[in-house]
C-alpha cells in the first residue's frame, strides 16, 4: 500500500521534471496561442503552480482522486475524457487476450503432462520454445502479413469493435500463452512426482484424478502469480500491438501523446499502469489465500 502511494509520487514527478511550461501548453491547446498576463496568472494559480513543490504534490493527489487529471496538451480535452474514450477498446483487447491465454495454457499444459514424453508433449514444448524466442511485435507483423493479407482473415483497418478483436487478441494470446504453458507444465510435472500424488494413487485414484485434484491446485499458485505480473507487461505492450493492428485503444493514444510531448496523458497512462499492477497483485494475493490455507495464517 505504501509502495503504491510512493509510486504516485514518482508519477507526479513527471510533470515538474518535464521540459516546457505547462501553462503555456494548456492555453495553446485550448486555442489561445498568444495568452496575456492575466490568463497565464489565473491558470497558474488554478493549477497551484506558484506554490512550493510538496504542496503541489498534495493538490495534485487531491485532484487525481476526484478524477481530475488535468488537460491534454494536444487536444485541450480533459485527460480523463481522452482516456475514457479509448479505454473500452484496450480493455476488450487485453481482456480477450487474457482469457484466451489462460484457456490455452491450462489445456496445453494438462495435455502435455498427461502425454508426457510422447508426441503431443513434444509439439507443445516446441511451441513454448518458439514463442519464447519470437518478440511479440514480430509475431504480430507476421500474422498481419500472412494471415490477414495472405489468407484474408480480418481487416487491416478495423472499424468498430466486436468480433474484430479476435485477431489481435488471439495473436497476443498465442504469444503470451507459451511462457505460461511452460511454467504450468513444469510445475505440474514437479507435483506429479511428489508425495501427495503417490499417496493418492496408492488409495486407488486414477492418474487423471490425481492430476486434476492434486497436481493442478498445487501448481496454480506460481501460475497465478505469473499471470498477475504478466498483466503489467501486457499493458506495456499495448502501444506496439495496437499500432500494428491499428486498434483504436490506449496504446495508440500513448504513442500520439509521446510524439506530441503531451505530458498529462503520459502521466495518466503511467498512473493507470501502476493502478492495474496494484489491483492485479491484490487479486493474486486474495486468490492465493483462497487456494492455499497456509497463507491465511499470516493475514488473520
Amino acid at each position, binding site marked *: 500500500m505504501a509502495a*503504491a502511494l510512493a509510486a504516485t509520487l514518482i508519477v507526479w514527478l513527471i510533470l515538474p521534471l518535464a521540459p516546457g511550461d505547462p501553462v503555456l501548453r494548456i492555453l495553446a491547446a485550448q486555442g489561445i496561442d498568444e495568452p496575456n498576463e492575466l490568463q497565464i496568472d489565473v491558470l497558474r494559480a488554478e493549477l497551484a503552480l506558484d506554490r512550493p513543490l510538496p504542496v503541489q504534490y498534495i493538490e495534485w493527489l487531491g485532484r487525481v482522486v476526484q478524477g481530475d487529471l488535468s488537460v491534454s496538451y494536444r487536444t485541450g480535452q480533459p485527460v480523463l475524457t481522452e482516456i475514457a474514450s479509448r479505454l473500452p477498446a484496450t480493455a476488450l483487447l487485453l481482456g480477450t487476450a487474457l482469457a484466451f491465454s489462460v484457456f490455452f495454457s491450462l489445456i496445453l499444459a494438462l495435455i502435455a503432462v498427461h502425454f508426457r514424453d510422447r508426441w503431443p508433449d513434444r509439439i507443445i514444448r516446441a511451441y513454448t520454445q518458439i514463442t519464447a524466442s519470437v*518478440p*511479440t511485435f*514480430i509475431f504480430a507483423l507476421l500474422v498481419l502479413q500472412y494471415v490477414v493479407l495472405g489468407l484474408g482473415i480480418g481487416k487491416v483497418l478495423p472499424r468498430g469493435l466486436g468480433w474484430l478483436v479476435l485477431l489481435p487478441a488471439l495473436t497476443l494470446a498465442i504469444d503470451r500463452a507459451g511462457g505460461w504453458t511452460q511454467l504450468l507444465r513444469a510445475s505440474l510435472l514437479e507435483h506429479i512426482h511428489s508425495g501427495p500424488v503417490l499417496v493418492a494413487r496408492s488409495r486407488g485414484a486414477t492418474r487423471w484424478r490425481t492430476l486434476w485434484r492434486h497436481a493442478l491446485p498445487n501448481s496454480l499458485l506460481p501460475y497465478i502469480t505469473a499471470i498477475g505480473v504478466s498483466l503489467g*507487461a501486457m499493458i506495456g505492450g499495448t502501444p506496439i500491438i495496437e499500432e500494428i493492428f491499428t486498434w483504436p485503444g490506449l496504446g495508440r493514444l500513448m504513442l500520439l501523446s*509521446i510524439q506530441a510531448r503531451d505530458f498529462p496523458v503520459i502521466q495518466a497512462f503511467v498512473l493507470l499502469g501502476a493502478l492495474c499492477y496494484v489491483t492485479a497483485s491484490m487479486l493474486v494475493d486474495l486468490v492465493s489465500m483462497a487456494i492455499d490455507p497456509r497463507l491465511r495464517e499470516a493475514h488473520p
Partner: protein
Amino acid sequence: MSGIEAALNLHRPRALPARGKLPRGLLARLWTHRGGRIGLILCLILAVLSALGPSILPHEPNWPDYASTLLGPSAEHWLGTDATGRDVLSRLLDAGHRSLGAAMLVLVSIYGIGLVVGVIAGVSGGVVDTVLMRLVDVLMTIPGMVLAFAIVGILGPGFHNLILALIIADWAYYARLARSYVLNAAGQPYITAARLAGVPFHRILIQHIIPPAAIQLAIVASLGLGGTIGAIAGFSFLGLGSQPPHAEWGAMLSESRFYFPIAPWLLLAPAGLILVSVVAVNLIGNALRDVLDSGADK
C-alpha cells in the same frame, strides 16, 4: 539416494551427457551442451557481423537510389532494396552494432546496477536495506514497459534516450533478485563455518557470497537479453528509438510496413535477423542455466 529418486531425476529432459564428469571450464561446458553449441556459434557470427558490419558494406546504406527501388533479392543486392532504393543487406549490417550493441549496453548496465544495489541491500540489512527495497518496490509498481514509454515521453524520442529509459525501467527487478541471492548465499552453513574459523567479513563477501549471486544473476540476465533486443527493436519500430536516417532493425520494419505485401523480403530480412539474435541469446541463456545449475545439485 534411493533408486527411485535417481530414476525420477532422470525424467527431466537434459541436454547434457548424463554420465561422466563435465569439463571444468565454462566455455567447454557450454560447448558440450546441445543448444549451447549452436548458440555460441550464432552469437559469434552475430558479434563479428556487428563489429565489422560498418566496414564491409557492399553498398551505401543511407543514400537513396531511386533507380533501384523495391528490387527483389539478386546478385547485386543479396537481400533486395527498400522503397528508396537502399540496399537492405547494407542497412542490416550497418544497424547491427546499434541494435545488438545497445541491447548489450542496457543489459550490462541493468546487471551491474542491480548487483551492486542488491549486494549493498542484502549485506547491510537494517535501514539501508529497507530504504533500498522500498525504492525497488515503488519502481516495480509501475510495469517496466510503461515506465520506459513514460521516460521516452519525457525525454523525447531518440536512441540514447531509449537506452536510458530501458535501464531505468528494468534495474529494480534485478536488484531485488540480487538481494535474494545474496541473502540465500549468506544463510548457508559454510558461511557460519568460515566466520567461526575467523575469515574476515569482507573476504567472505568477495569469495563466498558475491560469486554465486553474480552467477545466478547472470543466468537471469542472459535469459532477459532476448527481451531487451526485442524491446529496442519494438521501440524503434514505433519511431521512439533510433531516428532516421540511422538504420536499425526494428525501424527498418516500420519504414517499409506498407510495402510488405509486394516486397516480402523487406519484412523477412530484418525480422529474421532479430529472430536469429533472440534465438541465439536464448539458447546460450538456457545452456548457461543447465550447465551452471546442474553443477550444484547431486
